[in-house]
């Protein structure tokens, strides 16, 4: 597509990147077909091609209004459009760039500003989010329905086997909300890896930075990124094999560290190393000999592929393959490519669309009456769990549980 | 044939226009029974005949409207090709122009398509005496409105067809006809079940207690299908299908009005009395009945079809009445092509 970027951006790093992305888009409209918000709203402006156009205008020097911002806000960042695009347009990158500029040029209402600030101030910090969640969980039975839905029930952490009995070592990202909401995911991962002869340890890391990044607070996000790199570096030097991520949403972010810090002279190299070492837990298991796990299950599982897993990490089919190898029977889920509406903070900021997508997703997931729904990302897990009629778990917990029963 | 038969026809149209004379466009005069009563001075298209271009590898034939259908079929057969829509001739003198203007298709229609599906282009004279070309000789063409297909079945009310380009198909490597002894209802059900399966069926006909089914394709394909279907094989069935197409089958020797009823194929037995012959997987039903047109049409309206008084009966109301807005569009189109209303006036509907 033809472009004429405005002076303010043309010769910047972002400007050049955005220009290259825009020029790749040939305006064919294929991507609209798989965009969840376009399917719901039927407005070009709520589909990727329209959003690209809106951003193009801004980059070409037209001052945006809250209209452009609204349509960009409605984007789930699910990147389904990227998977669909035959031309290889990196929509996600463009959106990151576009959102920041729009954020600078369009003032939000005080209420909106406050919401976003609160999200950024609470969620990424374990020591802030954890206690708040505990209070919520304590009062959960008394909460009004919407809040109750947003407050997941408490889970037990489960045992964490000792890491140092194995030669093979991996590090796992703690992250921000997951230890508070579902401490059992990482411990289950540790147990499964333990059976495979891999010791799993943690460092004193924190939020991966995705939350701030997607709320257009890039500097804040990069702060988190550097902290994590610093926390992990000693372990990397000691030779951990991989940095395992059990939330695919965080996985996408950590795999981008190298890219995000590519111009940071102090961190570029380290960040690249971190990204190289980063693996989603499905990538780890996919290449391991799973016969050691010897699970047997008659559970009918519906797997929900998080967007971050299939469109972000491009790991479609891996988890399904692992579960099938381990003898789980998987249901056929229609429209697996569509987003469940969780999308980070989206469910909080755009509840109406988010709920519509959740309903559709649950219908699709339950179309063959599964016993349980498995997912790969904490956000999707809590989002779906709030209204699902069957339990929702991280798929690694399925495996861990079976091995446990054995 | 004279040097420029097209020009002769154009001149004739212009003269008629000047003298305000209605024209009755006539080919082999084999289908004058079809439609409302013909009126006007005959304009004989038979002077304009001959195949203009035929290239088997292109699957396209272009012929003048006055060309005998039989000649075209013969020429194609020599190259192992055919007019796949199997137009009925209703007489040796039938011309291509008449077949296209009447828009009637034979037994193979539901499986390969109707006349209109095979028309690629026409050259025609409109009611201003203008010589016009639409469509072409290639498989796909969306330049301009699809006037060529609009001419199909328009009964000559929009213009005089001069040349017509048609897509043709290879004749099947092999055909085979099976017969089953079943009643009307069961025959409908059977046809419907078969239609839902990928079988190489190319015609069906149920009349009396017999259901005939024709299979077309490769030898292996036919053998496999026969295994699935059962039934008895009929020898020399080509004649049967030809007689059916040409209405020479005994069923058509009638005293009553012959109705051509087109319905969604899965429609159950029609709630009208009279002998019925079924073709097209159930989509086409020939009915012999003298019950009032109004009552037949009310019944057919309810199943989403339409009923034509094919032969006999009240020559005023031959075709199923149209929704008022649709009729208006017809009249507007008639004016668009034939502002003076000289071509086959009223042959289709009053004023059309």
């Amino acid at each position, binding site marked *: 597509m033809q472009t004429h970027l405005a002076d303010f951006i043309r010769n910047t790093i972002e400007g050049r990147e955005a220009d290259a992305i825009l020029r790749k888009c040939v305006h064919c409209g294929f991507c609209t077909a798989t965009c969840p918000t376009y399917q719901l709203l039927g407005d070009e402006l709520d589909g990727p091609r329209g959003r690209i156009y809106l951003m193009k205008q801004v980059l070409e020097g037209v001052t945006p209004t809250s209209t452009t911002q609204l349509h960009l806000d409605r984007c789930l960042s699910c990147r389904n459009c990227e998977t669909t695009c035959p031309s290889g347009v990196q929509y996600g990158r463009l959106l990151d760039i576009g959102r920041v500029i729009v954020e600078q040029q369009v003032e939000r209402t005080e209420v909106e500003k406050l919401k976003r600030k609160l999200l950024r101030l609470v969620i990424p910090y374990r020591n802030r989010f954890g206690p708040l969640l505990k209070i919520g969980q304590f009062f959960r039975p008394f909460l009004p329905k919407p809040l109750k839905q947003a407050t997941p029930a408490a889970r037990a952490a489960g045992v964490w086997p000792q890491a140092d009995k194995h030669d093979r070592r991996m590090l796992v990202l703690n992250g921000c909300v997951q230890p508070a909401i579902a401490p059992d995911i990482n411990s289950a991962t540790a147990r499964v890896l333990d059976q495979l002869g891999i010791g799993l340890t943690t460092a004193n890391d924190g939020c991966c930075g995705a939350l701030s990044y997607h709320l257009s607070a890039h500097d804040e996000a990069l702060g988190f990124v550097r902290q994590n790199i610093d926390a992990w570096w000693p372990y990397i030097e000691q030779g951990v094999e991989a940095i395992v991520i059990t939330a695919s949403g965080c996985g996408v972010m950590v795999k981008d560290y190298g890219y995000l810090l590519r111009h940071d002279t102090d961190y570029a190299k380290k960040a690249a190393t971190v990204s190289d070492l980063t693996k989603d837990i499905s990538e780890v298991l996919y290449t391991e000999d799973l016969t050691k796990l010897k699970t047997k299950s008659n559970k009918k599982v519906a797997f929900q592929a998080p967007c971050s897993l299939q469109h972000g990490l491009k790991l479609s089919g891996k988890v399904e393959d692992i579960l099938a190898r381990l003898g789980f029977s998987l249901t056929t889920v229609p429209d697996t490519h569509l987003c469940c509406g969780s999308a980070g903070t989206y469910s909080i900021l755009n509840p109406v669309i988010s709920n519509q997508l959740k309903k559709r997703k649950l219908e699709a997931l339950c179309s063959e009456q599964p016993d349980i729904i498995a997912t790969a990302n904490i956000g999707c897990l809590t989002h779906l769990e709030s209204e699902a009629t069957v339990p929702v778990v991280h798929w690694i917990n399925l495996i861990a549980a079976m091995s446990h029963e054995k | 044939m004279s040097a420029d038969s097209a020009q002769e026809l154009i001149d004739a149209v212009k003269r008629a226009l000047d003298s305000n004379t209605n024209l009755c466009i006539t080919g082999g005069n084999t289908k004058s029974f079809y439609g409302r009563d013909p009126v006007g001075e005959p304009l004989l298209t038979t002077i304009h005949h001959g195949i203009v271009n035929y290239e088997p590898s292109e699957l396209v034939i272009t012929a003048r409207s006055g060309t005998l259908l039989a000649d075209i079929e013969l020429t194609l057969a020599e190259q192992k090709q055919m007019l796949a829509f199997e137009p009925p001739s209703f007489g040796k003198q039938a011309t291509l122009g008449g077949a296209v203007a009447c828009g009637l298709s034979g037994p193979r229609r539901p499986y390969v398509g109707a006349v209109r599906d095979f028309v690629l282009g026409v050259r025609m004279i409109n009611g201003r005496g203008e010589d016009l070309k639409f469509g072409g000789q290639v498989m796909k*063409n969306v330049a301009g409105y699809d006037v060529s297909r609009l001419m199909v079945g328009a009964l000559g009310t929009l213009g005089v067809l001069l040349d017509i380009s048609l897509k043709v198909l290879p004749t099947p490597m092999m055909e085979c006809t099976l017969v089953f002894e079943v009643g009307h209802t069961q025959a409908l059900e059977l046809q419907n079940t078969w239609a839902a399966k990928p079988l190489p069926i190319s015609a069906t006909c149920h009349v009396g207690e017999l259901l005939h089914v024709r299979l077309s394709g490769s030898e292996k394909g036919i053998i496999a299908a026969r295994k699935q279907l059962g039934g008895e094989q009929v020898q020399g069935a080509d004649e049967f299908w030809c007689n059916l197409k040409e209405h020479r089958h005994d069923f058509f020797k009638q005293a009553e009005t012959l109705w051509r009823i087109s319905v969604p194929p899965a429609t159950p037995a029609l709630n009208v009395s009279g002998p019925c012959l079924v073709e097209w997987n159930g989509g086409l039903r020939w009915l012999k009945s003298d019950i009032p047109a109004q009552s037949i049409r009310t019944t057919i309206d309810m199943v989403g079809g339409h009923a034509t008084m094919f032969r006999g009966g009240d020559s005023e109301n031959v075709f199923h009445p149209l929704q008022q807005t649709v009729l208006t569009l017809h009249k507007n189109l008639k004016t668009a092509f034939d502002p003076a209303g000289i071509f086959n006036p009223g042959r289709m509907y009053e004023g059309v």
Partner: protein
Amino acid sequence: MSIAPKAENPSLQSQRARVASDLRRVVATDSVLDEEESLRPYECDGLSAYRRLPLVVVLPDTVDQVQQVVRYCHDNDIPIVARGAGTGLSGGALPIEDGVVLSLAKFNKVISVDKDNRTAVVQPGVRNLAISETVSHLGLYYAPDPSSQIACTIGGNVAENAGGLHCLKYGLTVHNVLEIKIVTIEGDLVTIGSNALDSPGYDLLALMTGSEGLLGIIVEVTVKLLTKPDCAKVIMASFDDIEKAGNAVANIITAGIIPGGLEMMDNAAIRVTEDFVHAGYDVEAAAILLCELDGTPEEVDDEIERVKLVLEQSGYTQMQVAKDDNQRQLFWSGRKSAFPAVGRISPDYYCMDGTIPRKTLGSVMSKVDELSRQYDLRVVNVFHAGDGNLHPLILYDGNVEGELERTEELGGAILDLCIEVGGTITGEHGVGMEKIDHMCIQFDTLELSQFHAVKQAFDTKRLLNPDKAVPTLHRCAEFGAMHVHKGQLKFPDIERF
């Protein structure tokens, strides 16, 4: 330099405000777009080189709303451009400055499926592929499959008479639609066609199909569904010479075989699509043919053998039959994504759509190659070989001054060539705005006048997509003059760069 949006005529702005507020009485407030910022993304369809800002965009979601919007426009002499998914490649959905864009994208529901009669009633905004997906569990599918089927709407398909990869055997849209409901410019809801195999009166359905939104707004479509064949196999054959591949196509047809699909890609197309789908195409081949055979397993086996023989005689270099259905789908998905995949190697492309007699394939291909060199622009070829429907994609860079103009000239030369060999300027993408001047070459004044008379029969005030598809005689006169003074801007009235 940043481009300031072209200053608009102030009277247009006040009209915009008035029309928007009037239309908001009919549809929800946020279903009427009237800020320039929101209108921009609607300024073009899949042909992004041609852009025009509409007066307003309206997104109704009931038929009644469509009728009211249309009546309002009719009463107030406001032009209407219908829009489906906006994937058109000829500028059919290009807005009109003082006109409304009527989007049917919200009409995206399948209304009903009739299993016994094998039909489906769908709203116009339903995506082509969604129909097949919806009925797949019944063993049925909707046959016409344009490459854009993932995104394009059935309403747009009817309006363009879209073709697809399997149209050689199963026909175009016109062969697979039974009934449509349209809203006329007067706002009447009219049913055209029927659920039976034919319908009384003129074949208005054929006339409406391919009429590019000039005769009515399609608000419902009943499509014919086919039973999925028991078996489908695809052969991929490579050739070291594009002419040989072209001749192989003609040879297959001459042998009396009508494949389900018969498609061709040249080397550049093979490479870009392979990059996206990793189908295992032969990236060294000058051209590959994809030939699908379907039917009962017995028939398919028979035909595969016959086709192999023909291909052998035509001099293929490599041949491969897809080993399973997944691989078959993969072979096709590459072909289907070929146009946009070109975005990987060029920022812009201009897609031509001429259709020619099959026997001229080889010679026309060489001529196109010659033209490509003459104009110094790369041309990628992907096309519906079986139908003789070419899709030369001219690669250009919109940011380079003068390249679009050169591209249009080359496109024009290719169209001239198609007419010359007895073909047509458009096989399936429609005339729209893009090829309107070439209509003056393909048709003479009388024929164009007849088209205008047809338009008049439906739309006396000429409000439906008025300046598309059929040029005014005045325009042709100017075009004739322009042909003399080569190098003038093709559409001085359309915003372009």
